[in-house]
């Protein structure tokens, strides 16, 4: 509080040369120092501020204006100690006198009766490494210029200054500078029309960086729905605090979790393809470093919109474990959003389950079939190699339905192949055998083994259905046969009872 006045080095700021102000400050400081130093009052001060409170710092008192207010409130409790009472009362009076004097000075400032130097001294102490020279952030601006700038910025008065007439790197570091892109026909990007639609454009822009959540890097979730944007960002912050404690989840995982959870909670009508995650590493002098924009692709978005598919993919599966202890797990949804192939992880999961390295409850069952079919469809679509095909413009409307139809067929296949064996141990060793051929990418060996088993079994109708599936989805399919072959393995590996599979295949076949 008093350091500016009492400092010994350097020339005092012009405003501090005001002798009345200096005297008032000196008087108050002397009184407070006398109170704090006096050992007789130590107990009382501790009673008021607590035992742990340090009352002295650097050979001076350590009280703030707030503390003086506290002393004032509790003064009547100490009326029995007249000496203490009098000193405190004097401090309060000195403070009031100082405040009155400063209010008078401020009244002068308000009536604009001050010189330029004092106006700069009285400026609103805002500073930003970003907007160094932008309007009121500029250090050479006096208080009135600042207020004028601020008023025009809030009002969106584009005619006021060149700064407000256009949008470029000066206001948002995520934008290019006019000079860097002189050949782009729309630079300078004029704000006049934009402000008519969005009156507080500059207020939003100038506050944009505050929206970022700091966690080693800075991240911000963006959507075109303000409420959704706010909710998701708030959730990300809560999740990140938890993740800090657990130290297991990646930032990206936490973020997607927040997005998905919020969407599920709010049941918003949303279009996922308009969601973005903006990330930057650090701010340097008037610039930002390591900026990344991560969006959800249309293809993925169309699948995530579907409740059944999203629920099925929204699951963690262990892919590495020993002695029933999970060493590594993946979140299927995250891999999917990142556009990574799902099958290798699904295979690893079933492998460790068949090797009895995870508990029965950790086995993902139905999610595996969904994930495998989703992955298959993604592969097929990628194979077409047409980024802007018909499907793209129709936003893959039919894709979730098609996936669910195939999943339903796959559920009945998983059940059918399960019924080929009575004994659970035989099922599991057969599942292992089939899984090996999938992992070795040996389609015909897989078909051979399965057909041989079918030819030995008596259940003909059942067999014919399986043969139909093998023909259409495995033998004649070169792109995603493994995903469909995997369905058989999932069915065989599952320990769950007959009823469960019957229920699933009925439910998903729409019966």
């Amino acid at each position: 509080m008093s350091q500016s006045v009492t400092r010994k080095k350097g020339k005092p700021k012009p405003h501090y040369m005001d002798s009345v102000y200096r005297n008032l400050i000196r008087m108050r400081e002397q009184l407070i120092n006398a109170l704090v130093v006096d050992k007789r009052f130590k107990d009382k001060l501790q009673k008021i501020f607590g035992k742990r409170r340090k009352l002295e710092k650097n050979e001076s008192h350590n009280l703030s204006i707030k503390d003086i207010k506290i002393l004032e409130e509790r003064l009547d409790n100490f009326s029995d100690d007249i000496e203490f009472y009098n000193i405190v009362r004097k401090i309060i009076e000195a403070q009031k006198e100082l405040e009155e004097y400063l209010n008078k000075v401020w009244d002068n400032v308000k009536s604009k009766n001050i010189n330029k130097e004092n106006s700069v001294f009285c400026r609103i102490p805002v500073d930003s490494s970003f907007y160094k020279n932008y309007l009121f952030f500029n250090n050479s601006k006096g208080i009135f210029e600042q207020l004028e700038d601020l008023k025009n910025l809030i009002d969106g008065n584009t005619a006021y200054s060149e700064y407000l007439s256009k949008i470029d790197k000066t206001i948002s570091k995520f934008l290019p500078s006019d000079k860097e892109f002189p050949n782009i026909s729309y630079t300078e990007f004029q704000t006049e029309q934009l402000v008519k639609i969005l009156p507080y454009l500059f207020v939003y822009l100038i506050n944009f960086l505050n929206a970022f959540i700091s966690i080693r890097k800075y991240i911000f979730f963006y959507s075109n729905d303000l409420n959704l944007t706010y909710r998701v960002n708030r959730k990300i912050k809560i999740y990140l605090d938890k993740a800090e404690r657990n130290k297991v989840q990646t930032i990206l995982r936490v973020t997607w979790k927040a997005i998905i959870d919020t969407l599920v909670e709010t049941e918003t009508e949303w279009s996922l393809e308009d969601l973005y995650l903006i990330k930057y590493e650090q701010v340097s002098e008037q610039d930002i470093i390591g900026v990344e924009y991560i969006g959800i692709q249309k293809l993925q978005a169309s699948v995530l919109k579907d409740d059944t598919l999203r629920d099925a993919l929204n699951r963690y599966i262990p892919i590495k474990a020993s002695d029933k202890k999970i060493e590594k797990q993946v979140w299927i949804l995250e891999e999917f959003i990142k556009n990574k192939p799902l099958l290798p992880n699904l295979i690893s999961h079933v492998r460790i389950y068949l090797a009895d390295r995870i508990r029965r409850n950790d086995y993902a069952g139905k999610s595996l079939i969904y994930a495998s079919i989703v992955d298959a469809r993604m592969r097929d679509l990628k194979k077409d190699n047409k980024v802007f095909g018909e499907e793209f413009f129709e936003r893959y409307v039919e894709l979730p339905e098609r996936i669910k139809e195939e999943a339903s067929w796959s559920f009945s296949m998983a059940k059918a192949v399960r019924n080929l064996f009575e004994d659970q141990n035989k099922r599991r060793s057969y599942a292992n055998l089939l899984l090996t051929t999938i992992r070795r990418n040996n389609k015909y060996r897989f078909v051979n083994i399965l057909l041989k088993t079918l030819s030995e079994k008596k259940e003909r109708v059942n067999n014919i259905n399986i043969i139909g599936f093998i023909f259409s989805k495995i033998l004649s399919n070169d792109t995603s046969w493994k995903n469909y072959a995997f369905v058989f393995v999932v069915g065989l590996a599952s320990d769950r009872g007959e009823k469960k599979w019957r229920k699933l295949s009925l439910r998903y076949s729409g019966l």
Partner: protein
Amino acid sequence: MEKVEFEIFRPIKKAELRELQDLTMKTFSKIGTERSRQRLVYDLLNALKTNNRKRFLWLILKNVNTLKPEDKEKSEFTKFLNDLYIEHETPENFEKVAYTIVMGIMSIDKDERGEENG
């Protein structure tokens, strides 16, 4: 020298395989008994497992040859198979064609069963 690329062997289409499967069902439903067909499937799968293409074809042709000359499926099946081999002469395609035939034979039971039930 300019590099000229020839696309001699195009990948086999799913529709062609489907047609082959249907024709196999039609042809082999007239050959042998259910038990003999089961044995044939077993032999064919073993031949494929050891990649014995000669034996596979021998088994198929031997069985088709048991049909009477007036059975139109006999020539139809042989001609279709011959065309497929000429057009898609690669090991990959061979296995696709071969397993389609096996599945065709295995699917015959459906019709018989259907008739029995009907």
